[in-house]
Structures are given as structure tokens and as C-alpha cells.
């Protein structure tokens, strides 16, 4: 296979997905720390919130790349997550800064559990996507 734009997209996506995997792991660790009392929720939210938008933008970025490369299948696989990201950000709590997490509600067991589950699911998705891009 020649070095096409599509191939470039996959290579780029591969690298970016690796980055996203780290993001996901970072989130999981952060929420785990919260759960085990190691960190103050305010600090934790302050470190996590700036990471949310970059993650979403990176993902959106290579979705657009796949769109341009007309890789419909890959794009289709990513669309649900993209939609989820958009929904998630639209329904975030009232905040003046960027980010998703509100230190006053993050300690609620439901929300914390949700965030953790979200982290694990994303990690799984990114891992699968990583191998998909690798061999795709």
C-alpha cells in the first residue's frame, strides 16, 4: 500500500490514540485517588478539567481527518464516541472555565462511579482502536 493520505491518517490516529490512552489512564488513576482519599477534589478537578477539552479535540481532529480521507468505516466506528463527547460537554455543570468536573459534586458516589466507568470504557475503546489503526 502506497503512502496515501489515508495511511497518513491512520499513522497519525495511531499516535494520537496512544496519547488518548494515556489520558484515559490518567483519568482512571485520578478518580481512584479521589475515591481513596488521597487527593483533595478541588485540586484534582483543577488538574483534570484542563485535560478534558484537549482529549475531545484530539479525538474530533482525527475524526475529521478520517472524514477527509473518506474512511467511512473508521469514521463510523468513531462517531458514537464523538457524539457522546459532544453530549457530555453540552450537559456539563455550570462552569466558567473549561472542563467537566465540578469539585462540589464529584465526590458524590454516583458521579464518581460514573466517571470511573467512563474512564475504563474509554480506555478499552482506545485500546481496540489503537490495534485497529495499527493493523488497519
Amino acid at each position, binding site marked *: 500500500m502506497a503512502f496515501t493520505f489515508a495511511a497518513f491518517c491512520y499513522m497519525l490516529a495511531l499516535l494520537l490514540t496512544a496519547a488518548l490512552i494515556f489520558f484515559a489512564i490518567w483519568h482512571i488513576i485520578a478518580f481512584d485517588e*479521589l*475515591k481513596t*482519599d488521597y487527593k*483533595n*477534589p*478541588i485540586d484534582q478537578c483543577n488538574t483534570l478539567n484542563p485535560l478534558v477539552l484537549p482529549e475531545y479535540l484530539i479525538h474530533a481532529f482525527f475524526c475529521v481527518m478520517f472524514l477527509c480521507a473518506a474512511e467511512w468505516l473508521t469514521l463510523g466506528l468513531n462517531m458514537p464516541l464523538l457524539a457522546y463527547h459532544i453530549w457530555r460537554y453540552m450537559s456539563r*455543570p*455550570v*462552569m*466558567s472555565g473549561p472542563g467537566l468536573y*465540578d*469539585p*462540589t459534586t464529584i*465526590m*458524590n*458516589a*454516583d458521579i464518581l462511579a460514573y466517571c470511573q466507568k467512563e474512564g475504563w470504557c474509554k480506555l478499552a475503546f482506545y485500546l481496540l482502536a489503537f490495534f485497529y489503526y495499527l493493523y488497519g
Partner: protein
Amino acid sequence: MSAPAGSSHPAASARIPPKFGGAAVSGAAAPAGPGAGPAPHQQNGPAQNQMQVPSGYGLHHQNYIAPSGHYSQGPGKMTSLPLDTQCGDYYSALYTVPTQNVTPNTVNQQPGAQQLYSRGPPAPHIVGSTLGSFQGAASSASHLHTSASQPYSSFVNHYNSPAMYSASSSVASQGFPSTCGHYAMSTVSNAAYPSVSYPSLPAGDTYGQMFTSQNAPTVRPVKDNSFSGQNTAISHPSPLPPLPSQQHHQQQSLSGYSTLTWSSPGLPSTQDNLIRNHTGSLAVANNNPTITVADSLSCPVMQNVQPPKSSPVVSTVLSGSSGSSSTRTPPTANHPVEPVTSVTQPSELLQQKDMLSSSASSPAPDPAPEPDPASAPAPASAPAPVVPQPSKMAKPFGYGYPTLQPGYQNATAPLISGVQPSNPVYSGFQQYPQQYPGVNQLSSSIGGLSLQSSPQPESLRPVNLTQERNILPMTPVWAPVPNLNADLKKLNCSPDSFRCTLTNIPQTQALLNKAKLPLGLLLHPFRDLTQLPVITSNTIVRCRSCRTYINPFVSFIDQRRWKCNLCYRVNDVPEEFMYNPLTRSYGEPHKRPEVQNSTVEFIASSDYMLRPPQPAVYLFVLDVSHNAVEAGYLTILCQSLLENLDKLPGDSRTRIGFMTFDSTIHFYNLQEGLSQPQMLIVSDIDDVFLPTPDSLLVNLYESKELIKDLLNALPNMFTNTRETHSALGPALQAAFKLMSPTGGRVSVFQTQLPSLGAGLLQSREDPNQRSSTKVVQHLGPATDFYKKLALDCSGQQTAVDLFLLSSQYSDLASLACMSKYSAGCIYYYPSFHYTHNPSQAEKLQKDLKRYLTRKIGFEAVMRIRCTKGLSMHTFHGNFFVRSTDLLSLANINPDAGFAVQLSIEESLTDTSLVCFQTALLYTSSKGERRIRVHTLCLPVVSSLADVYAGVDVQAAICLLANMAVDRSVSSSLSDARDALVNAVVDSLSAYGSTVSNLQHSALMAPSSLKLFPLYVLALLKQKAFRTGTSTRLDDRVYAMCQIKSQPLVHLMKMIHPNLYRIDRLTDEGAVHVNDRIVPQPPLQKLSAEKLTREGAFLMDCGSVFYIWVGKGCDNNFIEDVLGYTNFASIPQKMTHLPELDTLSSERARSFITWLRDSRPLSPILHIVKDESPAKAEFFQHLIEDRTEAAFSYYEFLLHVQQQICK
């Protein structure tokens, strides 16, 4: 008591019951009195001092208000003592005695008179001991008396002369090696004596103090009294103060919880009381109350000062004694005290006790609880009153303190009293503490323990809801009592502090899910308590793995090891803990106070501090825009502040500051040395800075004159302002900067929507949507500015309290965030105007009084622990959640309630009990670090029927209300309403399908849940959740804020008001509170069908009272109570009941006052005529009736039934 009696009236002394022992002392003093009036006084005075000292224990903070000055404190530990007295913890007071001993050194510091006094008492005791008069409690009183009397007389002399004083002191010292302050009691007799005698006194002192200081704000002193021996209090006041007798009374009253203040410290009577108490191990709270009653009664009789009538029942009982006493009393008898002494002989005493107890219990909650314990111990202790006994007494009771470490001693002392094993007293005690709950509650809870424990079987009785017309009981609903064995029941935490929605915890989450009931805790951790054991100990014993504080529900594996009841780890018992000060024996760790009380307070060491304890710092941020000036709140605020400036909780480091703002921010330089306050204006609101950071928050005492000048000038400074803007956000930023170095409390007064600078808000309310049945928007904040500010403040230990006095929409939903997350509180006065709306103005004034003077804790954190397997899920209240079980509370106030949702993570099959522990660590206003620990123990059950049997329906409703508020904000109001309805539908259908085997066509509920649908309907019609009725957004949001932060008792009244018929009040079942008789009319259901035109009804909605007067209401009532000739002449707006000198007026007023006293915020009274426009307000609370937009109760039941059948 006995002693004095003995001297003057042997017979009388004989009669004196042990409890009255205190009286004996007074009697002794009395004899002296004749010689020199002042001398007795002094004696008394010293006694009080001692008392105080004891109370000191080392604990002080509880009564912040109390002037420390009263009690000069000794060195070292003693210093702490002054505070202690203030603390007024019942226990501490009792126990403090030992400390008192210690104090002797300090005593010197104290006024000479006091010293004399304190020592004096010991001396008498010693004498007695020498005589060997002490016999068993049963021993003839005469014996004691005679012996006692002699010593006493000598004492008297002693007292009079300073020399005597010294002697006495020496004696005291003997008694208490204390000089070291280590309180070790070398001599047995001495040790015994001090402990015994003092306890009672301290108690009295503490009480008195407590009331005055702590309670004062919220609860009237009277109320407090009401619980215990209200009667006593009342009776006392009558006579002239100067007489020794009076002093006596006062002291007694104190001991009996009477409100009376210190004024008469060191009264002999107090000593007597102490003695009595001590003698009877029971002496603990229970004894005191009973005793007090008796004393008071007897006293009045003797002196004739007061009418005995105060408590009929009591009086009868007493009468015998009083009569005897009177005869006995010496002619000189300046001492009402003697009557006290007169207390009957042991046997008599017993009877009296019984009588008292019975009377107390039946009529009112007050003293009732104690009776049993009192009676039991009393016999033994009875002789005790006599001074000589001490030594003997001591041995039996083990009061003497061995040489423990200083800290320990204090702790031990309180403990001792509490410790007594098995004590009935104890149980009574715990329940006592609850000031708030009406007397009824007390009685109920008390009753719950002993008498009413029956509900278990009863609670499962199936009730056909649709056929039961009168579902609401006639009497207030009590908290169910957990089904534990008797010992644990006694030890368990009072339901006023700690309640669980399910008093039988399901074994697994699956079982809980099946029951479809919410599981959670309702907490009122910083409640004003009348009795609280305060423990000073070098090491606070905690589990090494989960850090649980040792509590009554741990198990001791052997002498050296205990097993944590939360994580089951086995811990070592520290050496220090092995010593039991109560029995003065070694190796009885299970009798220590920590293990005998489920609510205790520890004085924390420096390990519990991240920084030195902060001083009390108060900052007032005041809106002075045109709108605010127009509303006129400044006058009221400044007036209240001027009046209460000296009562602000705090020590000598207390600091205070003021800021005002309109479109600019004004600071006030109050630095000491200025001739007048300096106003500094900062107009750069985009980048706020502090003009002179050092002199804006000033020491309250150093700059008091300047502060007063400012407060006098403030109301008139802005009268001509034309500034309409409000720069609240920048002002708050400035306040934060000002407070961040220390932390403290910021009180913000705001009258309009912030319109300038950061945090400006827009009006979001559409008035046309107020009665919409569909969507209610804008329940959440519009900006996160206030939330972030609150988090910053919380991080700097600063709480922001918001007073919103606004006539238009002010976006409380956004503004409230500043208090919600900084652990502040929110007050809202809609349509506030100082002349147009006098009832709101009056409410503000009363609320401010409470607000300014109530107890406060700074830089607090609260951790809630529960048995392994349970976990905390969601918290409700005003705080910031810092970790899964830790709430950060910049300030804690006694009116704050919390709720916690729980989930069961692991099956609880391997345990039969679960425990919950809240530990509230705070800095008192005196700069002391304290930990208040509550522990609740509940049984685990495996069957669904048992789960239903243990439902605490009120707690469940309050928790549901909290959850519904969250749901309204995060989702929508209609979701929340649906969830509430579903809660009823699910739980009743789950019950119907699993537990009840009866016909399924009917709507069945277990008796424990029979009020559930009614309460849910009430919630649906509550301002916070109602739809279809015009509700202003701010009102709705405020109701939600209250649901989140009010403690259960108050919240229940908001949800389901109480309705009483008051035009025919009778004394049947009346309760005696202080000198008043409070009628107890039955509860009526909230339905117009109960409103007859011929009646007048009082509705208690928590923060509002309505009196509805029917058209055909008896003219006698209108004339006697309302002060008008007939129905037509009653004005439309009436907010006060006139003070008329008629029986029915007195009854109505005493009933209303009694209701009022039971809550922190003073309710406004509205008198509503039938057919006046205001009656809509009243009728909207009739929740069982149908409204245009909502079901009636019956319709609601049918709806639920329909849902179940679907």
C-alpha cells in the same frame, strides 16, 4: 442539705433525701447566715466557683457566651477551666468536681469568698467523716445531721473569717492533693468527698451557664428549664436575691437546669446538691433534675416566697417534706435552703423520687427520665447529703480520683458520673440533652426507651390506608427505637442528634432494594446539648486502622484489648485507659465515660491541629445601596449588634470588621487609637484590594468604642444615597482577602440582584411561569462565581452566611452557592421592609439575636464512619465534601442539619449490629480544639418484614426531600415529583407483594409506614416542590435550601405543619415548663373538615404560625385572647397576641411561647380571620385537602393504589 438541717433542724435533716444532700450544705450555711448574712453568701459563692471549676474539666467551649471572667481560673489547667464552666456541659459540670479540688491553688486566684466557700465544703465533709456519721445511705438521717450540724456551725464561723478560709482550704487540699493539679486524690475520704459533693454543683452551674449562654440565643432559658426542673427555675426567681436562701434557690435551680444565672454562685445549696448527687452515684443528670424539682418546691414552701403551685404533682409530694422542713427550719432560717435539706428521709426520699419521677414523666418530658435512676441511687446515697459521709460515699462510688494525669482527671470525672454501669440514670441522661425537641420529644424519646418500646410488634400491624380516616396520631410522632437489647438501647445516641431511616438495617443491598426504601442518616451533630460529657485525656483512644473513636459499642476482648465495632480490628487498650476514675480501680476500661456515652466531646491535643486554633473572627458585609437603605435593615442589624456585642462567642482574641458596598466598596478602619472610625472607599471593583489590611479586622475588646461609634453611625450614613447598583461580587472577593489569613465568619446582607463587577446576575424569573405546572427552570446557579468563591473561602476556613432581604427576585439559586459550599447558612426575608412589613422586621431581629449569640465552631471537619460493608453515598447539607467520608465545614452552627445516603456494599451477614459514628472536629470560639463524637448502633435484620418494622418514617421523608431537591436541580422538578410519588408506590407495592398476605385490593401499609403517603403528599405540596400554585422562584429555592440544611425536627414542621385547636385549651395533660403550665392540645389533621367556624386554630409551620379564627368563634375567646370584642373588630393584620390577664389568654400564650422556644428561628405569628384575603396562605397548608392543582389525601391514595395495580 442534711447537714444544715441537722444543725438547725435535725428532723428535717433526717428527712432529707440523699439527693437533697446539697441542700444540707446550704442549711449549714444558713445557720451561719443568721450571724452574718454576707458570710453565707461568700460560702455559697465559693461553692459556685468550685462548681465552675469542675465544669471546667478542661472543657470550656460549650458556652461560649458565658463570660469567662466570672470564674477566674487557676494556672495551667485551671485556665482552661473558666471556659469549662461556660461549657456548662452537664457531665463536665458534674464531674468537674475533681478538678475543683485541683483548683484549690487556683482558688486563691479566685475571689477570696469563693475560695473559702469551696474549701469550706470539703472541710465539713471531713468533719463528718471523722464523726463517722456516715452510714449507709439508709442510715438514719438524724445521725448524719447531728454530726453534720456541728461541723457546719464551725464551718460557718470559718467562712466568716478569712482565717477559717485558709483552714478550709487546707482541708480541701488534703482532700485533694490537687495542688499539683494532678488531681490525684490521695486520701480516700477526701477524694471521695470532693468528687461527690462537687458533681452536683458543677452540674448546676453548668446548667445555668449553659442556658444562659448557649441556649439563650435560640432557646429561652425557660425552655431549658422546662426539661429538667423547670418548676424549680420558676420558683426561684420570686424572692429577693440577696438572701442566702435565694442564692440557694438559684443554685438549686441551676443544678436543676434552671435558667437562673450565675448570679448566685457558690451558694450553699449548690453544695448540698452536689453532695447529694455525689452521694448517689446516680447523681448524674437524672438525680439532678429530680432533686432540683424537689428543692425548688421545698424552698418555695419554706420561704413562702413562691407559690408552690408551679408543679402541682411535685408540690404534693414535696409538701410533706416542705412542711417538715418548715417546722424544722430555724427561725433565723434565712435559708430557704433548709427546706431542701428537709428532704425526706431515705424512705421518704424514695417515695418522693418516685412521685417526682412519675409526675415529671407523665406531664412533661422534663425530669421524667431521671426518676428511676435517681430513686435507685438515692437510697444508697441518701445519707450522703450529710457532710461527713464523703469518705464512705467515696468508696462505694469510687469517685475519688487516683492520681491520674491532669487531663485524665477531668475526663474521668465526667465519666464517672456517667459511667455507672447499668445506670438508668444514664439512659435518662442521654435523652435529656436534647434541648430542642419540645419537651414532648424528650418525654417521648425517654418513654421510647422504657415504656414505649412496644412499637416493634405494633409497627408491622397492617393498616388499610384508604379506610383509616384518622391516620395522624393525636400526639407528635416519635422516632422509633431500634430493636436492641436494653443495655444498648440505653447507650444509644439520642434520636435528636442521629437518626437512621431504617432502624433495622437490611443485611444486603438486595434486601434493601426489595424494600424500596431509602437508607440514610439524618444528623444534627452540633445541637445545643444540656448535658455532654467532655473528656480531657492525653490520648484519645481510637482504632488503629479505621481511626474510629472508642465508643460504647466496641467489645472488650479482655482487659487489654478491644475490638473495633466498625472495622473489627483488635486494638490494645492504652495504659491510661485502664484506669477507671469512677471506681478508682485499675483494669476496668469498659467503665470509662467514652465507653458509657454515645455522645461525648474530647478536648483534642495539638495532633488535631493543622495550625494554632484560630480566634473568632466576624466580618459583616453590608449592602448600602438605595434599595437597602430604603428597606431599613441597617437599623435593626446595628441595634442587634450593639446589644449583642458582648455576647458574641469568642475569647479575648475575637476580631470583628465591617465592610459596606454599593457600586463601590467601603472599608472601615477601626484601629485602636483612632478618634473615630475611618471610612476607606475602594472604587476599583475590577481589581479589589485592601486599603489597610491590618486595621480592618480589629480586636473586639480593644476597639469596642470605635465599633460602637460605627454601629451607631452606620444606619444614618447612607440615608441620602442615590446609588442603586450593587457590587456584591467584588465585595465578597474583598471579604475573602480580608478573611483568608485567619478564617472565620462572613455575614453578607444583600437586598437586590448583584448588578456590578464579578458575579453580576440577571433576572431569570418569568413571573408568568410561577404557577406553571410543567417546567420550573433556573433552580440551579446561573454562574459558578459564587461557588468558586465559596470553595476558596472554605479552603481558608471562612464561611459565608447570607441574609437576603429582598422585595424582588434576587436569584437566590445563584447567591445561595456562596453559603452552600462554605458551610454557611442562608436566611431569606422576602418583602422585607422595616415599617411596611413589621413582622419580617421582628423576625430579622430575633433571628439576628440567635445568630449572633449562638454557639459557633470554626475550622471544622466532620467525618462519618460506618461499619465495614456500608458506605456513604451522597451527602446533603451545607458543606464541601473533601473526601468520601469527610465534610469540610468552615463553620459549624447548632442549627445545621445534615443527611447522608448510604448503600450496602457488602453483605452484613456476619454481623448483627452496625454502627455509625460522626466525629466533628472543630475549634471552639474560645480557641480550643474539640471533637464531638456521636455513635449510633442499629441491628441488622435479614427479613423484609423486619425492615419494614423498623422504618423511621420521618427520617425517610426528610432524606427523600433532600434527594428530591438534588433531583430537581440536576434534572427537573417534575422528575423529582415523580420520584417522590414512586417512592410511595414502590415501597407500598413491595410491602403488599411480599410481606402482607392480605387481600391485594386494598392499599395496605405497615403501621410504621402509615404516614408515608401523607408526608409525601405534604412534600408535593411544599413550596419547594409544588406546581400549579403561584410560587416565586426565590421562595422555592429558599425552601429547597432549608430542606438541605435544616435538622429533622424543624424540617418535619416545614413539611407537615401541626394544627391545634386553641379556643378551648385545657390543662388536661398539660406540661409544666418553668412556672408556666403549657397545655397540650391534640394534633388535628390538616384538613378543612377539622376547621369549625366556632373554633380558633393554631398552625405551626416551623417558621410561621397562623392562628385561624373562625367566623362563629366564641366571643369569649376573641375577647379573652385576642383582645377584641367580636369577630368583626379583629383587624386584618395582626401579629401579636395581647397580654391579657385571663386564663385562656395565658394558656394560649404559654402554648405559643412553648412552641416558639423549641426552635432556633423565631416564627412569625399571623392571625388570620376567616374570609380575610390572607386565609389562602393558611389554607394552602391544609395538605389533606384538594387544591386546584393537587390531589387531596384520599385522591392521592387512590392514585397510589392505581399505580400499584398497574
